[in-house]
């Protein structure tokens, strides 16, 4: 359903690197270089890579939040550039790594905002939208704090509410930026279970970035390995998640074994190479 063909991207202006050879001149900081990948309907794809490898940028390009400098992203065989923001938002939802509200929105307020692309310019949410929002809250197990102020929630609760808000968009594709990064192990498992269920029961296609190799192994069917803005591996998790790949990505020696009880690949880091 989603296909990226040879996309490249660079931040201009502020995030520049300067080398002696180009002193005083702004150098474009290339974040992604010639990246190609495709996501099938119902797929669950993980993006792995060290800090600064371009994971977040890639997700934002896939969601049409940024436009690539070259190459194209196509959704249902139509370039994203030809869609309006609203039309993309009806199909693709994005969950940022962290969401902070400067004002005291309630949880249901936040979730109802997900209905934005489905409403006309001056339309107000009706009972049907409230229904969809409530179901999204239930699906994420956040119904008990519907009336709480968003800013008073814990990190894990916030993450579930933002996922609920994305679900209220009724998307076919969900993009998640490090959905478990700020969470303790209990909440990690909770979010992991939630995502697997949404994928299995609702058929929501997902692309997520993560630093957690064991989460990737437990959850993702396919993996994209990203290093310095280049794709260095793309394929089924079982084939891609190897000690060699981990060494390439993170300069870390690791043991990758099939765990006796879970039957999944488990990564145990040993040390820096």
């Amino acid at each position, binding site marked *: 359903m989603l296909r990226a063909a040879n996309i490249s991207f660079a931040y201009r202006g502020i995030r520049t690197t300067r080398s002696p050879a180009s002193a005083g001149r702004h150098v474009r900081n290339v974040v992604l270089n010639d990246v190609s990948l495709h996501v099938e309907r119902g797929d669950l794809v993980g993006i792995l890579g060290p800090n600064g490898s371009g994971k977040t940028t890639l997700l934002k390009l896939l969601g049409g939040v940024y436009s690539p400098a070259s190459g194209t992203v196509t959704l249902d065989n139509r370039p994203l550039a030809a869609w309006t923001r609203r039309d993309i938002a009806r199909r693709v939802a*994005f969950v940022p790594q962290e*969401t902070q*509200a400067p*004002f005291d*929105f309630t949880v249901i307020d936040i979730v109802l*905002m997900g209905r934005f*692309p489905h409403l006309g310019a001056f339309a*107000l949410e009706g009972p049907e939208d409230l229904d969809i929002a409530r179901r999204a809250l239930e699906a994420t197990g956040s119904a008990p704090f519907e009336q709480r102020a968003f800013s008073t929630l814990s990190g894990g609760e916030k993450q579930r509410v933002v996922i609920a808000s994305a679900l209220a968009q009724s998307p076919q594709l969900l993009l998640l930026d490090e959905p478990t990064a700020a969470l303790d192990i209990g909440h990690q498992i909770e979010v992991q279970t939630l995502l697997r269920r949404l994928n299995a029961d609702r058929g929501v296609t997902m692309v997520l970035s993560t630093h957690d190799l064991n989460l990737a192994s437990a959850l993702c069917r396919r993996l994209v390995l990203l290093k310095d803005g280049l794709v260095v591996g793309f394929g089924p998790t079982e084939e891609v998640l190897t000690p060699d790949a981990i060494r390439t990505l993170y300069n870390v020696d690791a043991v990758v074994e099939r765990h006796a009880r879970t039957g999944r690949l488990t990564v145990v880091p040993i040390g820096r190479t």
Partner: protein
Amino acid sequence: MQPIRTRLVTTVAAFSALLVIALVVGPVIGSTHISLARVFDRSIPFADNLDAQIFFIARLPRVIAAALVGGALAASGVVFQALLRNPLASPDTLGVSAGAALGAMVAITFHFDFAFAGLPVIPLSSFAGSLCALGVVYALAAARHRGLSTTVLLLAGVTMTAFITALILFTQYLADFTDTFRTVRWLMGVLDIGGYAPVLAVLPMLLVAFGLFATLPRALDLISLGADAAASRGVNVPRTERTALVGASLATGAAVAIGGPIGFIGIIVPHMVRLVVGSDHRLVLPASILFGATFLIASDLVARTLFAPVEMPVGVITALVGGPFFLWLLLRSFR
């Protein structure tokens, strides 16, 4: 919780009722007692009817001006706060009011009393001043990408205001004595405009500004959670930002052109309104316009009557209330 439609209707109805009370009470009370019976007594010719003259020439335009200025400044505050994701942003703290004041000052001092394309130049010049000041602050915010932290915002605003104040003082230095007297009073924030002309002059700008604001509320809700998050929910972020910035500059420019840089309205009013209606901008924006109008009519009433027959500039009253209020908000934001 009530559905949004019900809440919108009750909110607008309640705040409109408050404004109507202020609009009715405002012109009746003042340093000179007037009799409403005499004001509307058609048998006395207007030229001989002192009560009617006070009501229609001195007080009514003043109350209308207070309503428009208060509503415009409060709405600008709401828009700045959402756009910069910081509840301490306002036309004053950002230096936008100062920019507008400089624009108007230049036009007043150099007697640009003519009209340009059918619009008087003073409010246009005031609009240009606020747009320039806002452009600088917003460039800073855009460079930060995630909105302005309170520290950066306040520093930028203080620096901007200090810089513009120097330019205002320089402009005053160039002006002759009578103009200086006029502009010094105006810089304190005064609403004794003595007629309807200044209000009519800025009305087109205000109507455009309020029209632009009407398209914003839901997009502001989403942008307050982050520009990228808003874009992924379907908001056209660059277009919304442009609309909001032009609208807020028009509103601030028009307000300052009438009454001078009256402070703190853009911060006090949206906060009080949020305490009552919550954070949804579809409620906060219209309620702030209505309550901003009410609040400034009331402040001006205090300014006119507190030390009657001496009148104080209303800007002094709003600053005396707003200063401590702002400090309290600042303390709360450090928690």
